[in-house]
C-alpha cells in the first residue's frame, strides 16, 4: 500500500495544476464578459456575398445558407 504515497502526491499535483490554470484563465479576463461569447458563437463565419449569389462558379466563397 505504499503506492498511496505516490497516488496522493500525483493527485495533488494534478489538482494544483488545475488550480493554477483556473487562476490564469480568470486573470486573462475571458470571464469578465459571460454573455457576449455565447451569442458570438452562433454567428456564421462565411457571408453570402453578391458575387457568390450571382455566379455559382465563383471560387471566392462557398455560399452558406443563412437561416
Amino acid at each position, binding site marked *: 500500500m505504499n503506492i498511496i504515497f505516490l497516488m496522493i502526491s500525483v493527485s495533488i499535483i494534478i*489538482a494544483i495544476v488545475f488550480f493554477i490554470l483556473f487562476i490564469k484563465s*480568470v486573470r486573462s479576463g475571458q470571464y469578465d*464578459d459571460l454573455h*457576449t461569447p455565447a451569442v458570438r458563437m452562433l454567428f456564421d463565419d462565411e457571408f*453570402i*456575398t453578391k458575387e457568390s449569389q450571382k455566379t455559382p462558379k465563383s471560387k471566392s466563397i462557398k455560399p452558406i445558407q*443563412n437561416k
Partner: protein
Amino acid sequence: MLKNSCYHCGNDCDSNPIYKEDKPFCCNGCKTVYEILHENDLACYYDFEQSPGKIPEEIKGKYNYLNDVKIVEKLYDFVDNEISVITFYIPHIHCSSCIWVLENLDRLNKSIISSQVNFPKKEVRITFNNSKVNLKQVVELLSSIGYEPFISLDDTVNKGKVDRSLIYKVGVAGFAFGNIMLLSFPEYFQSNEFWLERYKPLFRVIIFIMSLPVVFYAATDYFVSAYKGLKHKILNIDVPIVLGIIVLFLRSTYEIAFDVGQGYFDSLSGFVFFLLLGKLFQEQTYSFLSFERDYKSYFPIAVTKIIENTSEKSISVYDIEKGDRLLIRNNELIPVDGILITGFGQIDYSFVTGESMPVSKESGDKLFAGGKQLSGAIEMEVLQTVSQSYLTQLWSNDIFKKESSYGIKNLTDSISKRFTIIVLLIAFISGIYWYFIDVGMVANVVTAVLIIACPCALALSAPFALGNMLRILGKQKLYLKNTGVIEDLSKIDQVIFDKTGTITTNKTKITFKGSALTKLDNTLIKSVLRASNHPLSRMLYEHLVEDPILKVTNFKEELGKGIEGDIEGNYIKLGSSDYVGGIEKNTLQTVIFVSINHDIKGKFVFDNTYREGVTSLFSDLQKSFELSILTGDNEGEKKYLESHLPKGTHFIFNQKPEDKLNYIKQLQRAGKKVLMIGDGLNDAGALAQSDVGIALSENINVFSPASDGIIDARQFTLIPRFIKLSQQTMKVIKISFVLSFLYNFIGMLFAVTGNLSPIVAAILMPLSSISIVIFVTIMTNILANKK
C-alpha cells in the same frame, strides 16, 4: 390605411413610407443605413432580430474635436505608430444584431482591424490602423449605421483595473474545501485498520497545509472587517465569524499536532467557502449602468472656440477660459456660464432646474451651464470656467463628499451584537460548569461552543435573500446599486417626487381654447408655422393634422413674441398675448394665441402630459406613506395637481436644487426616512441626501444622476409593489434567522455536553447553510411571483 413599420428601426412610417427593394422605411436616414449595410454585404444584420436599427442622428461638425490629439489622448486604451485601440460606450447596443454588425466593422472600412463587443457593458473595443483612418472617421462611421458612441467628460477619467480578488478567494476556498473533505473521509469512519493508522499523519499534514491559504488568504476580508468593527467598538457579524475561524484553526492544529483527533479543517474550509459564495452572490452589478454619474458624464469633452471672429478650433472643456468665445450648435450642451452674443437662444434647462419649457434668451442675456441649445447655433462669451459654473458648484455640496459613517447599518449586524454576547456567555457558563465536573473537558467544551456557534447560516441569510431580490428587481427594471438599498427601502415612510420628467413625460399635450378653428384656419396656421424654427412652433406644427400647402408671403418672426405672415390675402399672427393684440395676462401657462385677419380666435395651450397611472400610484402610496412633490417649475400646474392627487400631498414649487436638498434634510432631522424619486441633475443633491434616492429614466442608457437605484419609466406605477417586496424580503430574512438559531441550538446541545465530534460539525454546518440558502431563495421567488 396600411400600417407600415420601418424595416430598419421599427417605427411607424405614418403616411409616407420610403420604399427601397419593396421594404418600407420611415425616413431617409433609415434607408441610408440599410443601403450601407446592403452594399457591404452586411444585410444579415436584419436576420437576427426584427427591426434592430435606430434612426441615425445628424452629426455634422459634432465630432470635429476628435481631430485634436491633446483632447482625445486620454480616451485611447492604447496607441502606437500603427495601431490605436479605443473603447466606446454605445447605448444603442441591445441585441444580437448589434453585436454582429459591430464585430463586422472591418467590412465597412478595411482600415479597421478588429472590433469586439462587451454586451453587458454595451461597449465595443475597436482596433484600427491609425495611419489610414483617424478617430473622427471611425466615430462618423459608427454614427452612419446608427451606433453613435456616447462620449462624455467622464471618459477622460481613468477607471482603474478590474478587481477579481473575490473570485480568486472563492477558488482557493473551494479547492481546499473539496480536497480536504476528500482526504478527511477515511477518518470519519474510525475503523482500526492498520493502513489507515499508517497514513493518518500524512493525510493530516496535507489537510493542514491546504487549510493555510484558506485562513490566511481567502478569509482575510473578514479579519479586516472585524478589526475595523472592533476599532469602532462595534460587534458586526464578522466578529463572531473571525472568532469561529480562529478557534477552529487553533483547536484543529492542536489536535493534529498532539494526535488528539483529526481536527475540524473540513468544517473550516467549508465555512469560509460558503461565506465567500454568499458574498459573491450578493455582488450583482449592472455593468451597463452607472450609479455614480456626476456632471462629468453629462458634459461633452470639447467645445468649439471661435478665434479672431472667423476660425473655429476645438478645445477641451477644461481649457475654457473667461472671455473665450464659444460656438454652441443645435442640440449641444452649454458647458459654462456665459453671455449670449449672437443667435437665438432656446435653452432647455429641464434637466438642470426642472423647468419644463425651454427658455428664450436674447443677445446680452446670461446663460447658465447645463442647458441644451435647441434652435440653431449660438455664439456666447464665457464668464466662468467649468469648475466655477453654477452647475458644477452643485457638486461641491458636502453631501457628495460625505463618506458614509461607520456603524450598524443593517439587520445582520444588529443581530450579531447580541449573538456574540450570548455565545460568549454560553461558552463561559459551560466552561465553569465543566470545571467542576471534569477539568479536562473545559477546553474541549469551550472551543466546541465557539466552533459550533459559527454564524454560517446567519451570515448567509441576508446575502442570499437580498442578492436574489436584487436580481428579481433588476428583471422588473428597477436596478439598485447594492443589496443595502433594499433594506433602506423597507424602512422608508416618506416618498418625495420631482415633477418635471418624473411624474410628467417629455411629451407635450396641446389643446385649443377658443372659437373652433376650421380646416382652412388650421392650414393657414400650419403654413405659417412651417417657416419657424421655434420649438413651440415645431410642436404645434406636428400637432396639426392638415397639410401646409399654402404659400406664405411677408413672413416675420419676432423672437420671444411671435410670428406672422400673409397667405392669399389672410393675415395670420401667432404668438404671445401682447403680440397678437389681446389683453389676457397669463404668465404661468405656455400658450400661443392665434389671430386671423385681426380677429383673435383663441389660444393653443401647451401642457405637460402626466404619466399614465399617476393618480392611482399616488392613492396607492398614500395609504402607507406621506407624499410630497418638490419641483423647480412654477405654480402653473397647481390646480391640476391638487385635483388629481390625493389630499394631504404636499406641493412645493420653484425649488432650486439646494432647496430640495434642504427640505429633505429637514424631514430627516424630524426622524423620517425619505425616498426621493427624480430624474435630472437638479435632483442630484436631493437624491444623495435622501435615505433612498431613485432616478427615473425614459432611456436607461442615457445619463441619469448619481443615485441608489435607477428605475425604467415604464415601471413607474410599480413603485408601491417594489417597496412592499423589500419589506417582505426583510421578513424572510428574519424568519431565516430564527431557523439558523434552531441549528445553532441543536449544535450547542452537542457542544455543551461535550459530544461534538468532527463528523457532527462537518454534517451540521453545510446542512444548515444549504438549507437556509434554499429556503431563502424559494421564499423570495415566491414573493416575486405573487401578484
